[in-house]
Structure formats: structure tokens, C-alpha cells
């Protein structure tokens, strides 16, 4: 349920953005979530729903669309590229759960599958962001 905290950051940001754009109602929020975040989609949607209910009229009929951004990892040592899904099965529960909380601990618990280096980049698939907001003035 730390998904709730992330859902709240979505709604907080959407409401602020709507105020800036002078939207009276928000009809749609497109959300992108990095694969490394390993969000439990139903928990996250439930949290979004609860937070939306607690908010004012602006969000009454909002539709939320959640897209998972696929992870891309690239080794700075050997140039190898891979996805988090490729290596996920090798992680034990604690490691996987740690990455769920803090995606960057993937540098602690995983390595480049080719050369074993911890010095790789997450080129995509981390973080939480809003990709678009629709609404009426």
C-alpha cells in the first residue's frame, strides 16, 4: 500500500496543473509508471479511486489511464542492454520487494547480465509521471 502515496502525488500534481491551465473539470489523466516501480495495478487503481472520491467536484468524472513504461537498462562498462523482466526471476522476494519500494536499489541487488557490472543506467522504466491531462475550462 505504498502505492497510495504515489497515487496521491498523481492527483496532487493533476489538480495543480488543472489550476494553472484554468480547467474547471478534469476528464482524463494519462499516467506512466516505470516497470521498475513494480506497482500492483489493482491496489494503485483502488488508491486513485479513493483519493479522487475525497477530492472536490473537479475530478468527479475523471478517467485514469495507466501505462507501464517498459524498463531499459544499459551497461556503462560493456554496452550491453537488457530489460528488468529479463533478470527479475533471479531475484529473491526481499530483493524484488526492495526494488518495488526504491527502484534504484536495483544497482544494489542486480548486475549487468553480461559482464557483472553494477555500473549501468536505467534509460527508461523508473519514476511516475503524468503524460497528459484533459479537461474543460
Amino acid at each position: 500500500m505504498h502505492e497510495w502515496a504515489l497515487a496521491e502525488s498523481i492527483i496532487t500534481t493533476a489538480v495543480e496543473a488543472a489550476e494553472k491551465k484554468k480547467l474547471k473539470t478534469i476528464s482524463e489523466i494519462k499516467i506512466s509508471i516505470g516497470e521498475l516501480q513494480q506497482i500492483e495495478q489493482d491496489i494503485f487503481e483502488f488508491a486513485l479511486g479513493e483519493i479522487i472520491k475525497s477530492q472536490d467536484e473537479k475530478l468527479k468524472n475523471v478517467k485514469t489511464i495507466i501505462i507501464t513504461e517498459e524498463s531499459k537498462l544499459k551497461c556503462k562498462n560493456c554496452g550491453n542492454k537488457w530489460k528488468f523482466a529479463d533478470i527479475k526471476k533471479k531475484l529473491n522476494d526481499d530483493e524484488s520487494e526492495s526494488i518495488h519500494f526504491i527502484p534504484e536499489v536495483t544497482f544494489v541487488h542486480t548486475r549487468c547480465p553480461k559482464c557483472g557490472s553494477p555500473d549501468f543506467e536505467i534509460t527508461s522504466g523508473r519514476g511516475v509521471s503524468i503524460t497528459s491531462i484533459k479537461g474543460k475550462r
Partner: protein
Amino acid sequence: MEVRVNVIEKRLRNVKRIISVASGKGGVGKSLVASSLALNLSHKGFNIGLFDLDLYGPSSHIILGVKKQNFPEEEKGIIPPKIHGINFMSIIYFTKDKPSPFRGIDISNIIIELLAITQWGPLDYLIIDMPPGIGDETLDVIRLIKKSEFLVVSTPSKVALGAVSKLLKILIELKIPIIGVIENMVITKSSFIENEVDKLDLTYLGTIYFDKNLEESIGKPDKIFKTNFMKDFDKILGEIDL
């Protein structure tokens, strides 16, 4: 549009004061000061949070003697486990104390994530144990935690002052509140650091002497209260009346 940063202010809304214990220099006693400050104020009945932001060499858990590194409980975010009455957050819950080869961008992302998901609840003081340097951690505390004040630690050495004065200068330039400078690990009292602090028009808070028995108390909070370190520090706290 990155969203996590927008919820940070809300997470810290019920925290009355935020004190970042920093130095610019490593090994001057930041972690000892931060942990002792948390213990001291908690003992006086205040509601305290302690946030170890040294992601490479986290130390507060060693000083407080945290043994088990279970995950924090989840409740609309994560709840900092209580350690000797202190709400304690550290990267160790997630690294399991393994090496952390993070680049700056990762550090910055971790700080944003932890600030966005940690539910501190109402606190009188949140104390942040800072790493050395003026890197991503320091820049992000300045950027993301607008109400943070700085408590700066130095030793009497010219080498330490070189790094410490760089941190002080940038904090002064950016008009960040500086509570003052503590001189730690003093063996023979001199006025060198005090004079340098005066020149910058800052407050010299006082001296903590080198305590050759301190090491025995590391990991044992009950013992830390009885050290000469804590006696010196408590005297300083009495005078500045935080």
C-alpha cells in the same frame, strides 16, 4: 510531468522543524551529532524523526544499534520504524546493508522517492544525517526541503575547514538558515575555527571534546547518554535553546 516532487511538501507539512546536520567534510562527526541530537530531543519528550541521507555509508543505524532490517510497514506510504522512540528512516531497509554503487542521478531519484512515500506523521523535529560534499544530496535537500535549517559540524583541522567553509559559503549565498557551527573532536582548545566562523558572521555554537571512550558506546543508545560526548553536546543544546 514528474509527480513525486509535488507531494513532498505535503509529507513534511506536520513537521515543525527540519535540521540537516551537515559539514561538507567527511568523518567530522555528523552522524554522531545527528543521532545524539535525535536521542537527546526524543528523551526530552519531543516527537523526533531521523533520516539517514548518507546512502553510501549509512551510519545512524550503527550508532543506534539497529539490528533487524525488516521493511517498514506500509500505510498510505511507508512508516518509519521506531528505534528507541525515534522514527527512523534509512536506505538500509532496502539495501540490506549491501554496497550501494549509485551515481548522482540515482541518489537524486532515491531521495525523491523516499521523501514522496515516507509518512513521518506529526514531528517536532526531523533530523537529517547528511553525507559529505556539496553534491546531489545537498542540492536536493536545498531544492526539495525548503524549510530545512543547517547545523554544521567541523573539526579543528585546516583540512576539515577547507571543505566546511565551502559548504558554509554556498549556504550563506543561498540564504539558507544556518543554526551555527559545532567544533567536534577537539583535543586542545584553540580559537582557529571560532575565528573563521566569526569572519563569516555565523554563530560558533561550542566545542565537543575528543572522547576516547565514545567508541564503546556506539550501537548502545543507553550508553551514549552517559558519554562525555553527550555531556558536551547537551551543554551546547542548552545554550542554543533549539
